[in-house]
């Protein structure tokens, strides 16, 4: 992904930016005025400790105090977000989300259903081509790699690979971060499991991943509860598979009580991209566009970087020297990213289909 950008980006970029800058500057003022007139932005599924969204939202509020940010259900999964758009097609009230942040595989699905409104932010061209829709319906925002977070108060030997999780030491210890039928993070957790058994990302990874989860469930090591900071610390889910940026943020919030260790499992490391989109039925379309402009501005991108995520414009910004060194140092070690695999949209969709349809049948994990 990085090489693609390096090859095509730099020269064209400067020229394009120069020409579009003038055009965008005009409409920016209009956009701001229109957004302030709308006065509200409804977001969904943005936990404050996910990629530093808390600080990002505060930054937006500070910049545009006339716009109230109405935050819906921070624990919603990607599928829940799409459902919220569908359920509120005729509703212009505060329950209808304006903007979405969903897993890569959910972008094309939502586009096909006509749930998205296209929009190209002013820094559009700095977003890598393989993580955005050419017509602007959805565009990549940040990425990280799948890792294990372990509560070392409860777990003595930290697992280093997916196969370790089948051992009897980890009885009733492992959890995903959500329902594998709805949560992108959980679905890709299973893809990572499948890839650790040698599968290609896509249908095969879904199949083998489900097999591993079925074995784990049979061994009694799987806990069908959504793993988060609270459940890790309170002991229901001492081991959770999640994005490294989430685990790092959770570790920070626990501040050593209990201590948490983050391990990128051996084997191919799975990188997951999320995409931003505006709802086609957004009650406040201008506020939504302004939000996107903010997110893709330097300020927004650095806000995500502070939350341990690699923002979409990471390469372009680091080449332009816009990233402070201390921030770079706090990021997860580059080693995990060196062997990172970025599944394409098609591969993620294939994996998602297998997992969400067959989870019940193959694993059938219900609290018993």
């Amino acid at each position: 992904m990085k090489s693609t950008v390096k090859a095509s980006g730099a020269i064209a970029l400067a020229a394009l930016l120069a020409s579009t800058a003038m055009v965008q500057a005009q409409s920016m003022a209009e956009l701001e005025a229109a957004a302030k007139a709308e006065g509200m932005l409804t977001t969904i599924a943005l936990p404050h400790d996910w990629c530093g969204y808390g600080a990002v939202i505060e930054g937006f509020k500070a910049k545009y105090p006339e716009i109230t940010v109405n935050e819906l259900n921070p624990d919603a999964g990607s599928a829940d977000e799409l459902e919220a758009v569908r359920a509120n097609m005729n509703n212009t009230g505060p329950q209808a989300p304006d903007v979405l942040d969903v897993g890569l595989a959910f972008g094309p699905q939502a586009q096909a259903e006509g749930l998205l409104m296209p929009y190209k932010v002013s820094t559009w061209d700095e977003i890598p081509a393989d993580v955005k829709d050419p017509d602007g319906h959805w565009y990549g925002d940040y990425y990280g790699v799948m890792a294990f977070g372990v509560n070392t108060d409860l777990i003595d030997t930290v697992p280093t690979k997916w196969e370790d999780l089948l051992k009897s030491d980890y009885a009733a210890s492992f959890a995903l971060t959500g329902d594998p039928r709805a949560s992108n993070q959980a679905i890709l957790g299973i893809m990572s499991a499948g890839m650790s058994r040698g599968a290609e990302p896509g249908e095969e990874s879904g199949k083998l991943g489900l097999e591993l989860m079925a074995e784990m469930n049979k061994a009694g090591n799987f806990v069908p509860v959504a793993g988060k900071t609270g459940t890790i610390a309170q002991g229901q889910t001492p081991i959770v598979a999640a994005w490294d940026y989430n685990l790092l943020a959770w570790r920070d919030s626990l501040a050593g009580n209990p201590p948490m260790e983050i391990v990128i499992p051996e084997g191919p490391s799975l990188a997951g991209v999320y995409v931003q989109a505006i709802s086609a039925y957004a009650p406040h379309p201008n506020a939504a566009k302004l939000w996107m402009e903010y997110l893709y501005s330097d300020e927004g991108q650095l806000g995500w970087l502070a939350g341990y995520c690699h923002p979409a414009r990471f390469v372009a910004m680091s080449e332009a020297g816009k990233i402070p060194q201390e921030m770079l140092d706090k990021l997860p070690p580059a080693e995990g990213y060196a062997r990172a695999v970025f599944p394409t949209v098609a591969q993620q969709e294939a994996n998602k289909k297998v997992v969400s349809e067959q989870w019940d049948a193959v694993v059938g994990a219900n609290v018993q």
Partner: protein
Amino acid sequence: MMGSPRFWSWAALVAGLLYFFLPLVGMFEFSLRARRGEYSFQAYTNVLSDPQFRDTFLYSVTVALFTIVLGVLIVAPTAFWVRLKLPKLRPVIEFITLLPLVIPPIVIVFGYIRLYNTSSWLPLTGTAFGTNLLLIFGYATLALPYMYRAVDTGLRTIDVATLTEAAQSMGASWFTIITKLILPNILSAILSGAFLTFAIVIGEYVFAALLNRPAFGPYMVWMGGNKAYEPAALAVIAFGITWACMGVIQLATRLSRHNRVQR
């Protein structure tokens, strides 16, 4: 009664007390573990200084107060009127007040979402204000059985018909009768209903979550997933509030016993 039966009684009581008190002790102890290696009230400090705690708690308290006022305004005059003028209607009214206990709250709020969304004749969910109204009405519905039972019991102890006749023969209007004569006499009953309503509303989750309102219940659930020791502190606070409410109800009932006319 001596010997064997007494022993079993004590055994049952002790077992029961263990089951009931251990979770309370456990949650209190867990809430003290916020600082590693030592007991402290750090979790409570964190919770009480969290602006979201204050916002959601204040929101729930405000909603509870409105719910209580609404509940009293709807139930007290109705119970009085039915007792006085429409005694045959009492079973119907009682049946209606028992319905919220039969129909699961999640079904009721599902009905609200489908019936009062923006494409209906009463688009309450279209605005934040409308949704707040819907929440208050919903809570009043949930508290209806308890409020009605409390007020009805209170009315039973005063001779409504005679009091009303006496007042009317002295030229009092209906409004005066209800506010100056009936309400003060059933005050303790109303207080019981009010505090029970308060306890119900403060911790309620399903209505608030599905109507997406920033209430205390969803806040607690969110804390449970995201924080380690603060949830236990919240549980202690919630339990303390419930206990306080029940305590006031007990006090109100005991006070009323002195005033009650013995039949």
